[in-house]
């Protein structure tokens, strides 16, 4: 019905004998959907582009400067990058950050998958309630979620005082807090709600008749899972890993609160460059290297998994 209305409009438009260029322009504008769409979109897109591209550009430029006192020496130099490459502490911290994030990502996906699977396949009533229940903590204060682990793992914390109260240990366990494991546990807990949604969505999309077909053709539950369900849900798993891995590499709150000296990550060093070390160009160069390394790893990972999925098919 709508089509015929537009057709009539267009015919009327063509049949009109003479039009000024302004009304022609208006007619073009009204008919061109894409143009209208772009006009409507432009404020949002421009704000986002401006507030991401300009700062990033400036950061790249600044990484080739040097700090002199409270001012910047704006002559071009590669000194910051040379320093990062030649100082082993930087690469050690970066490697540690990558390992911590990788461990956290793996743990997050392993924990989230069965949960997403349960809600996608075995919950039939009140599905929405389950989804809200699973993702709710993600919306609460990040700082407080991390702080709660300090309360749990601390020297006088929940676990230590609880175990001592029950008489299982005599003095507090010191290995709980201030180490990389504490960082991994805390990050996993903080991000697990974020991993569930993409996995859930990809599981929900699976055509149930495929599972039926696999059963009819003689697959047991385990074979069916590995041959049908898991491969079909891989896009969600891949999305979840990227969504967790990339932001966690750059986390500085968790290592600062529960990491201790051995759990510090690259982001703590970047933060220090903009604070007590007061070397903004050095910090910019570090941030850029971190982004490049993370981006590179994410790209390789996506490429490899795509390749693997294709081979399975």
């Amino acid at each position, binding site marked *: 019905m709508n089509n015929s*209305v537009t057709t009539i409009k267009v015919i009327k438009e063509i049949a009109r004998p003479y039009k000024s260029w302004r009304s022609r322009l208006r007619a073009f504008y009204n008919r061109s*959907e*894409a143009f209208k*769409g772009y006009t*409507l*979109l432009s*404020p*949002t*897109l421009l*704000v*986002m582009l401006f*507030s*991401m591209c300009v*700062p*990033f550009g*400036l950061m790249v430029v600044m990484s080739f400067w040097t700090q002199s006192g409270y001012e910047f020496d704006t002559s071009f130099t590669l000194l910051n990058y040379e320093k990062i490459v030649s100082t082993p502490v930087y690469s050690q911290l970066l490697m540690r950050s990558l390992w911590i994030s990788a461990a956290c990502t793996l743990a997050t996906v392993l*924990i989230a998958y*069965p*949960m997403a699977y349960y809600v996608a*396949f*075995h919950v*039939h009533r009140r599905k*929405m309630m389950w*989804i809200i*229940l699973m993702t*709710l*903590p993600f*919306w*609460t*204060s*990040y*700082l407080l*979620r991390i*702080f*709660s*682990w300090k*309360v749990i793992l601390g020297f006088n914390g*929940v676990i*230590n*005082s609880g175990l001592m*109260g029950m008489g299982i240990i005599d003095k507090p366990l010191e290995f709980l807090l201030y180490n990389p494991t504490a960082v991994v546990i805390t990050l996993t807990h903080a991000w*697990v709600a974020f991993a569930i949604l993409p996995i859930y969505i990809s599981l929900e999309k699976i055509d149930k*008749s495929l*599972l*039926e077909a696999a*059963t009819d053709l003689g697959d047991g539950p385990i074979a069916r899972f590995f041959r049908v369900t898991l491969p079909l849900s891989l896009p969600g798993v891949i999305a979840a890993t990227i*969504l967790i891995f*990339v*932001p966690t590499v750059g*986390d500085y*709150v968790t290592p600062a*609160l529960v990491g201790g000296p051995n759990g510090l990550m690259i982001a703590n060093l*970047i*933060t220090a460059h*903009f604070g007590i070390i007061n070397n*903004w160009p050095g910090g*910019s160069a570090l*941030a850029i290297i*971190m*982004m490049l390394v993370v981006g590179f790893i994410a790209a390789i990972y996506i490429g490899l998994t795509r390749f693997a999925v294709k081979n399975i098919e």
Partner: protein
Amino acid sequence: MKNVAYINRPNRPLFIYAILFLIFLYLPILFLPLFSFNEAIYIAFPIENWTLQWYRDMFNNEPMIAALLNSIKVGVVASVASTFLGVFGAKAVTRYHIPGRAPIVSVIMAPLVIPGIILGVALLILINRIGVPLSLYTITLGHILVCVPFSMATLMTRFEGFDKSFEEASADLGENAWWTFWRVTIPIVFPGIVASLLLCFIISFDEFILAFFLGGTDPTLPLFIWGQLRFPNRLPSVLALATCILVLSLVVVVISQYLVKREPDSDTP
């Protein structure tokens, strides 16, 4: 739905796993409220005396109240601004056939994936180069950047959910684009707008990472808490404050999720 026997059968091991998962998810957060009623300054079991003293103290804590007001100001401005941007963006990508829709949407969603520290540092450099002093305004700017993706996502589901023919009918009956937008589109997506406002407010209210870089001398509530963490004897008051923030966040998010996930057709005028 097809009748697939093994799917409809309840799965007991997975159900137990789901319960354990929820315990893992919620238990750590619940320790904060629990210890906020503890009379002793140190967090340790067993809790011997229960008290409401830490909550009473909050009313006289002037720096905390100032930080709370700052957070509310930033949150209101950031949520209104990002919802405003979100409405136009979401309508454009869902209602018009735009070439290059996918890359545009991923550009707008990018702040979700970019580590907070990178955004914070980059914005700090920009603000420093322009020469604007760090203040609540700069925090607000950062918060708008992280809120727009959530606002877009919330409103896009809402726009996708309602029938395009309502807008077309209004246009056919002679309303121009603006009036159609105000009298048809806005009322239908209104729950989505409220949800987006609530969600963006709470994201800004709880946001720490960007505020840490972009904040000046006036702290927001998370910055205030961060400052207090250095003093062990102020821990109980932080716990009481944390409890209030958690309760507020949970209530606001539940309302906003309820508004988004409701069937769009059930409340059309």
